[in-house]
């Protein structure tokens, strides 16, 4: 059985169906990409899996346990941690304290949490910045801090919401390497990403959603040749050209 089994989740905001009957499945240590045009419902799906929204219908099963409707902190305790598209550092706290908040998820001991935070900060190459206030970091490092905090909670799955949007190419490459390393250590990842290069080089499988519904699923090579996917994306381009 898959580590994360999402079946038929639906979210409506008034008359708008943001996500409709979406199925996802993620195995241990796997990287699954979730792509789709703007407003396709990717972040809404994330919010439902991580407990920020209650799905109107459907179920989220993690590790054999029904986690539908649990609070975000309960979901995190069980081992599913998300990052935010619009990064949310604790601006007045130091980088180390930011990561320590995550590390306290698995321990009550200050020394232990601190040690873990130091280790993760080093892993992400932010050692020199650990005493800096998180609010004074550059965008690239804020994105990294977001990953560091999530990693510190000791998750079995990380939901990465556009962790590489707005990064320069070299920064993106470094981030890809980091994600690959995280995956190598056994953590499964669900990526929402706009940068196709990232998705293509990382994801083992890709799910494409459009207007809240899944339109395709498969390996990266299949996906780029899928007609409905091309239509969804090219349709957007066409509008861009004429408009």
């Amino acid at each position: 059985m898959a580590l994360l089994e999402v079946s038929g989740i639906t979210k409506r905001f008034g008359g708008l169906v943001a996500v409709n009957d979406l199925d996802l499945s993620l195995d241990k240590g796997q990287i699954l990409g979730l792509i789709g045009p703007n407003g396709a419902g990717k972040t809404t799906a994330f919010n439902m899996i991580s407990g920020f929204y209650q799905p109107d219908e459907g179920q989220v099963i993690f590790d054999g346990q029904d986690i539908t409707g649990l609070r975000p902190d309960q979901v995190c305790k069980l081992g599913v941690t998300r990052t935010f598209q619009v990064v949310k550092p604790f601006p007045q706290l130091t980088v180390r304290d930011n990561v320590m908040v995550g590390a306290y998820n698995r321990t009550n001991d200050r020394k232990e949490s601190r040690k873990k935070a130091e280790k993760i900060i080093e892993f992400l190459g932010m050692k020199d910045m650990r005493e800096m206030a998180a609010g004074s970091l550059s965008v690239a490092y804020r994105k990294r801090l977001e990953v560091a905090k999530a990693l510190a909670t000791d998750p079995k799955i990380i939901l990465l919401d556009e962790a590489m949007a707005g990064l320069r190419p070299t920064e993106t490459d470094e981030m890809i390497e980091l994600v690959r390393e995280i995956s190598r250590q056994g953590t499964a990842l669900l990526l929402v990403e706009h940068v196709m290069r990232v998705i293509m080089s990382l994801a083992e499988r890709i799910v494409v959603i459009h207007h809240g519904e899944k339109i395709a699923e498969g390996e990266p090579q299949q996906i780029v040749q899928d007609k409905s996917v091309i239509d969804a994306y090219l349709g957007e381009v066409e509008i861009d050209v004429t408009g």
Partner: protein
Amino acid sequence: MTAENPATTSNNPIRSWLKDIFLDWDRTQMVICFLLVLFLALTPLFISSTYYLGIIILATIYAFIGISWNIVAGFTGQLLIAHIIFLAIGAYTTIVLFNTYSISPWVGILIAGVVSGLCGVVVAFITLRYGLKVDYFALFTIALMVALRTLFLKWDYVGGAVGMWFSLTDPSFDKMIFANKAPYLYIALSLVVIGLLVQYRIYRSKMGKYFLAIREDDDAASALGVNTSRYKMLAVVIGAAMAGIGGGFYMMYVTFIEPPQVFNLGLNIEIVMAGPIIGGLGSLAGPIVGALLNKPFAEIMRGALAEGRSGNSLIVYGSFLILTIMFMPRGVTGVLHTIYRRILNRLNPRNLGDS
């Protein structure tokens, strides 16, 4: 940080001990706090005027109340404006137990802490249940204060509009009534010491980190496994219980209480908010530093501007608060922190920016 600093492993134990303290801003703040406590403890030796001693005792009580508010508003960022509710409930609990049931204030003050803490549970539950945040939370507490004032005015059990008081004619330790001022000062100082230690323990622990995380970003905290509702309630309850204890002692010191006096936003600003804000909200030394500047300044203004129209002193006091907030948004402690970092950088650039 000290642990990685090779210099601290020098074989001079006193030097390394000093470095342990002064390379850490939290500990440095605690040193400042305890120097202030020591100074206050020595004041009866060179101040004999009961008027000035009275001001110092009130400032000390304000420091304790300020710490209790700092934990709620400074650490978790919850805008519990009318925190004085809990002080008032603590004061009333103590005096009702003392007058009506002849229970010693020493016990009464502790019961006051429990009663106020329970009221904190109720306030936190209502605000969390209905998702009242920031300004709505603030308005709710103010509305509650006004409602309680009316309730207490009509409630004969607590003296109604007449208020409650006790006589100072029969001093005794059991009744927490003393013939001179010094014992009051030392009781208040003991409360402050306990308050400072509690605050420090919280700040350095998991609970404290979670409190700060909630203040900085609620959603991000919950995504990292923080049960935000639980920790918000915890902060309110701790703050309320401490304010209740402080209120109980305040009652025993001022000897008289009536609803308009304590369910009052003006006194709330003076007793609860001004200290931590002047001193630096959310910092460890803020409440005590602020209280020692705030209360004496208010009193001096009241004395100096007593002649002429009444209210002149309030204009000056209000302006003082506004100027402080404008020029020192992080309070006196914030300014001290900047100076501290400059000194540290000059001594050793590698220690750059300790928390």
